[in-house]
């Protein structure tokens, strides 16, 4: 079975911004995203506020090629890191039928 080497971008942050990040990720080239409710603590976690959808912290994941990953990480770090509670990282994954996500 052929597997395509792609990147998994994970962003965890306060839920007030996570819907926007998911949408912006798609605009920057991701073919989709997966969002999970979470809870967490960090250096600025107390900033999180309750939104009407419930969770204070959310995690969003994108399976993307490296260029898109870079774009998303740059965008997130430039737009949100200063004032919002959030963390972002990158990992290597092998994706089934990965050509769909290029």
């Amino acid at each position: 079975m052929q597997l395509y080497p792609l990147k998994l971008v994970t962003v965890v942050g306060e839920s007030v911004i996570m819907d926007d990040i998911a949408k912006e990720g798609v605009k920057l080239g991701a073919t989709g995203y997966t969002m999970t409710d979470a809870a967490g603590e960090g250096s600025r976690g107390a900033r999180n506020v309750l939104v009407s959808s419930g969770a204070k912290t959310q995690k969003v994941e994108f399976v993307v090629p490296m260029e898109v990953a870079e774009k998303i990480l740059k965008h997130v770090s430039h737009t949100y890191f200063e004032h919002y509670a959030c963390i972002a990282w990158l990992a290597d994954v092998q994706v089934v039928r990965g050509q769909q996500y290029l």
Partner: protein
Amino acid sequence: MMIPLCSDLLAVAPPVVVAIATAEQLSRILESLERNLLTPIPLCFVLGIICTRIHGGIKIPKELYLSIAIFLLMSIGFVGGHELAHEYQEHGVSTIWKPALATLFLGCLTPITSFLVLRYVGRLSIADSAGIAAHYGSTSAVTYAVANSFVEQSQHPANSFLPTLVTILECPGIAIALVLGAALMARERAVKGGGGKAGEGKLWEALYEVMTGQSIMLMAGLLVIGFVSTMFMSEQAFQPFYDFFQSKGMLFRGCLCIFLLEMGLVAGERLGDLLKVGPFLVAFGVGIALVHGFLGAYFGHLAGLNLGGCTVLAAIVASASYIAAPPAVRLTLPEANPTLSITAALAITFPFNIAFGIPIYYEMAKWLGAT
């Protein structure tokens, strides 16, 4: 209209402070305090605080909390629409337009008074001042519900259209504070030459989100639904809906208990932040409530509200939002520290109003001559 009213106000304010201290009134306040505090709703709040402080195990699922919030907002709207329909059928808009205008005026005034005090007395940053002002410019539906049940227990039920005023008071304060904050920060940034990043482009988005947010959609939507169905349905067919939503009913009161338990749990956690936010904010949370409460009672009385109505209007003007405002402020003024605003709204002003504020506003309204 604003200027004469304001000078009026200045003439009135000092004697109030004196008068309110007479012995007889103080004992009356203490009495109402007891009558007010020793009821399940504030006691559940206290239980929540105690539980958090002793690291107890009560956990209200957030879905229950959100569901009750939805029910309370729908209920306030629906009953409001129902009463409005009765009022309208009897008096047209003659009794309503003045209180509505007064409320709108107060909704525009309170974010500004809050901002000025925070920025120039408290010397907070623009972002923090505007952020907190947005909370105090809006209102807390739960404070409304508690105040309403207080005046009912005191045999002085508020004018029937008070829920309508809650709806009117929800938005303008948030909008004004956010616009003010964004404008002043843009100016400051322009002066300093720094480039703004997040938040800026999101102002209009956030304003739209406030105006079409859950609180306002549910309250205003159910207000219309309550109004229309009162107009067109037979009383018998209407009854089960009324029983479900009515604010004197068991569901509303019972849900309020559970809701306040959860608020107590959250406020208990915030108590630890009181030290962090410092004495100014504590004083602000109480002082601004008293000032806004007095303004509410005063303008309510001017607009012709009854004793219960003045008390409830005072309470909602004095209250601070902790549901609709926080996400809006977080999106628009990310530099503002939410710990400050939420602690002030939830751990200072809310319990103050629930425990002491409401009976005090009741006395204020009495003293102003409301009946």
